[in-house]
């Protein structure tokens, strides 16, 4: 008589049980803040379309302390997205061979973060120069 009765364990709360998974959920959650920022910009585009009064209203809203605080939080999460994006990048790339040696994961991540720094400076200078 077959006495087999394999037991299937539920997956509820799986991500809370390991710090690695908690971090995973946090960096996945950064997407909420990316979406939030995109919506702020979308509202801006709609205000731009509506004329100078609407646009200045949007700018005034951005200048409120609540908005600045919110954007600081968004900045932290988008920054965390940047950091974790390039942390995982070595897993998503094929082996990069330079001068006969394979580029290390640390090198790929550092290059990515350097690119973030470069783009950030470029964008700031562009904004500064265009003003």
């Amino acid at each position: 008589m077959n006495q087999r009765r394999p037991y299937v364990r539920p997956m509820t709360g799986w991500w809370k049980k390991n710090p690695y998974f908690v971090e995973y959920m946090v960096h996945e959650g950064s997407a909420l803040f990316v979406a939030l920022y995109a919506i702020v910009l979308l509202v801006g585009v709609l205000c731009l379309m509506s004329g100078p009064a609407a646009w200045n209203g949007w700018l005034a809203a951005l200048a409120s302390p609540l908005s600045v605080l919110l954007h600081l939080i968004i900045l932290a999460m988008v920054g965390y997205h940047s950091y974790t994006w390039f942390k995982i990048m070595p897993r998503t790339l094929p082996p990069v061979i330079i001068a006969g040696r394979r580029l290390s994961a640390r090198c790929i991540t550092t290059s990515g973060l350097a690119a973030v720094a470069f783009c950030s400076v470029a964008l700031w200078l562009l904004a500064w120069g265009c003003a």
Partner: protein
Amino acid sequence: MKSELKRSNAPIFWGLFGAGGMLAALFGPMLVVITGVAVPLGWLPAKTMGYQHILNLARNLIGKGLIWALITLLLWHAAHRIYHSLHDIGIQGGPLAKLLTYGIAMAGTVITLVALLVMGF
């Protein structure tokens, strides 16, 4: 034996996720600083985001393209990630989940496009 293999359409959404993710990673932080902190607090002159200045940018074809690409790619990136995160916490990928994620991204794509076109050239 398993039934016929069905080709997944995931590459479309994954591609958008990747493009949006790269854009957000490289330019996201500084954009948030400029629009959300620097200009509001006066670290950059107010005319950086002045109406006429930005309108000129948005009336330019390339400017339109950049603004549209930025907003929509960020939305598609977030939609894909949030959709999968909902799946991760046990909320199955039904039509409602798709609507609240990809649906919003699609809506944002269309609304932004229309708004940019209405603004003219």
